[in-house]
């Protein structure tokens, strides 16, 4: 069980900078998601760790050993590709044996290890099939088995589930997590799916324009986003622009409190509030937290929950997510009062 460290890595393709001075530590035995929109550099960072790309500046260490100039075939990594990249002319067993043979494991020993790994990914009995004879989910499992059978120091996954349909993807997320925990394998997982990143990882690192803008445990990153980008890319957020005072933030004449430290009074501040943290009342109840009147503009009913679109007095559009414990609490065009706890007003960088 070893960790991966990336220090000051920059990479550009021609004149286009892709990674800009990225440093990150991937803890041993943990699953870290690299989350970001396309073009954020997350795949390039993964490929630099794998050795498929050379960084322009900076270094990569696996288990303390600097591997920046080590060729891919000597790095002892396991990689799963978005397209699975199974060898089409080989059977499932031959695909899994390929890496073992390269590392000098041969004969019955190799076959026993390959079979054990195929059992681990629940593909026992498929040894003689060819990739073309398997479903997408099964091909995914073969790719995973092929990557882990050699006992790699780190497992790298490049959007491995994006080609699967929703149900299969959720099933594979559980499987992947089970296997990763069984093997206690340091894993780096590239995805653009925020829900996947939240449910799957020990750590989420959000990338934007070639930089890691925030990283931490999923709950930490979700509950305390540091920037407007982090708040809106990971989940939904309402943004309220106001001015800092000694007690809180004044947004269109109303004082909103926050638990976060505030900049000097008079400076501009943006607050982020998650839609599900906001309560919705028809009467101005004596809530001890922040309150904000708004008009219901649209109700999106989705069975278990509803999403309300509302306009505040200054015209700011807000989104509130409410479980339908009773009938929806408000009607279209109604004036309501929104309320939330000060701890849920998060100060973010604009």
């Amino acid at each position, binding site marked *: 069980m070893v960790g991966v460290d990336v220090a000051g890595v920059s990479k550009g393709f021609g004149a286009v900078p892709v990674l800009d001075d990225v440093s990150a530590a991937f803890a041993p035995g943990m699953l870290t998601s690299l989350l970001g929109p396309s073009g954020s550099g997350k795949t390039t960072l993964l490929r630099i760790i794998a050795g498929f790309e050379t960084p322009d500046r900076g270094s990569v260490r696996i288990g303390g050993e600097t591997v920046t100039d080590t060729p*891919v*075939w000597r790095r002892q990594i*396991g990689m799963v590709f978005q397209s699975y*990249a199974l060898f089409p002319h080989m059977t499932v067993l031959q695909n899994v044996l390929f*890496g073992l043979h390269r590392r000098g494991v041969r004969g019955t020993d190799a076959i026993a290890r390959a079979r054990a790994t195929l059992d681990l990914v629940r593909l026992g009995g498929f040894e003689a099939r060819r990739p073309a004879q398997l479903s997408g989910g099964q091909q995914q499992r073969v790719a995973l088995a092929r990557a882990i059978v050699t006992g790699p120091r780190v497992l790298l996954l490049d959007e491995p589930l994006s080609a699967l349909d929703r149900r299969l993807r959720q099933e594979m997320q559980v499987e992947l997590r089970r296997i990763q925990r069984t093997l206690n394998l340091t894993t780096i997982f590239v995805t653009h799916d925020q829900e996947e990143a939240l449910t799957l990882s020990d750590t989420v690192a959000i990338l934007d324009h070639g930089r890691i803008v925030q990283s931490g445990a999923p709950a930490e990153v979700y509950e305390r986003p540091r920037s407007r980008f982090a708040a809106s890319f990971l989940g939904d957020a309402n943004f309220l622009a106001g001015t800092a005072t000694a007690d809180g933030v004044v947004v269109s004449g109303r004082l909103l409190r926050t638990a976060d430290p505030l900049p000097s009074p008079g400076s501009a501040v943006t607050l982020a509030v998650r839609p599900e943290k906001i309560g919705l009342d028809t009467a101005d109840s004596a809530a001890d937290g922040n309150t904000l009147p708004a008009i219901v503009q649209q109700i999106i009913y989705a069975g278990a929950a509803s999403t309300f679109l509302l306009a505040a007095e200054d015209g700011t559009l807000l989104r509130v997510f409410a479980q339908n414990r009773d009938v929806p609490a408000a009607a279209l065009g109604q004036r309501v009062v929104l309320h939330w706890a000060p701890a849920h007003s998060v100060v973010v960088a604009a």
Partner: protein
Amino acid sequence: MPAERHAAGPRPRRTGTAATAALLAPTYLWLAVAVFLPLAGMLYFSLLTGVPAPHHPAAFTAENYLAFVRKPYLLHVAWRSLALGLWTTGLCALIGWPAALALSRAVRGRARDAIFLLTILPFWTSGLVRVLSWTMVLADHGLLDRALGAVIPGWRVSDLLYTFPAIVIGLVHAYLPYMILTCYVSLAAIDPALIEAARGLGARAPVIFARILLPISLPGLLSGAVLIFVPVIGSFMEPRILGGRVGVTMGTVIEDQFTQAFDWPLGAALSFTMLAAVLLLFGVLYGASRLRPAA
């Protein structure tokens, strides 16, 4: 929805069949007229005792098909044709496959278009001009000798013209594009991630070549080999012009029967014998390739 599709199913299929037939008809009509008619005529000739003339009625005979028994020197000629086919096909594979790999992996955009154009260029020149220009290059004190003489002190003559290698050089030049194009098609279809996956699993270049690239591109290599081997063993222009005395091949022998000896029946019979040999060869190869995956 499924029932609806089922009910609507047969109609598009029928128009589809009609459209397919209409699209294929000109090709098959042309093939029937331009290939099978002359072939049928040749088959008829091959079974005659001589060319029928007003005062020399010809009789039917199978004698022409015994040429290889009656004229043992033809076996020698056939072997030379076979060697020519093997050498040319082998060299085309050795030169063409790496070129196709480079084109599919390393070269992009305009550079690739330009190289493709240069590759196909031999197709655009007249075969006769191409072969005759090789005589100027390969002749004693020709362009090749002068070039080598300028580089290697004391170089006299390469003595290549009118040798077996001269024929192979001319034929490789003519048929290399087929190999490059067929190999390119199968190599370009390989997902680059396959090669990265192999490298990630610890494979170095020789293993990637032997275990990934070569097996996956084998169909392209084989179809290129067929496209080259068949016309090369029947070739007569390159052996005649570049081979001189040693340029006696099945192609030139057959050509002689039609243009010099006026023994059309023998020429036709030799043609059909070669056709049968080639079909047999590929039948065996095809059977062997079909057996491979099961083994």
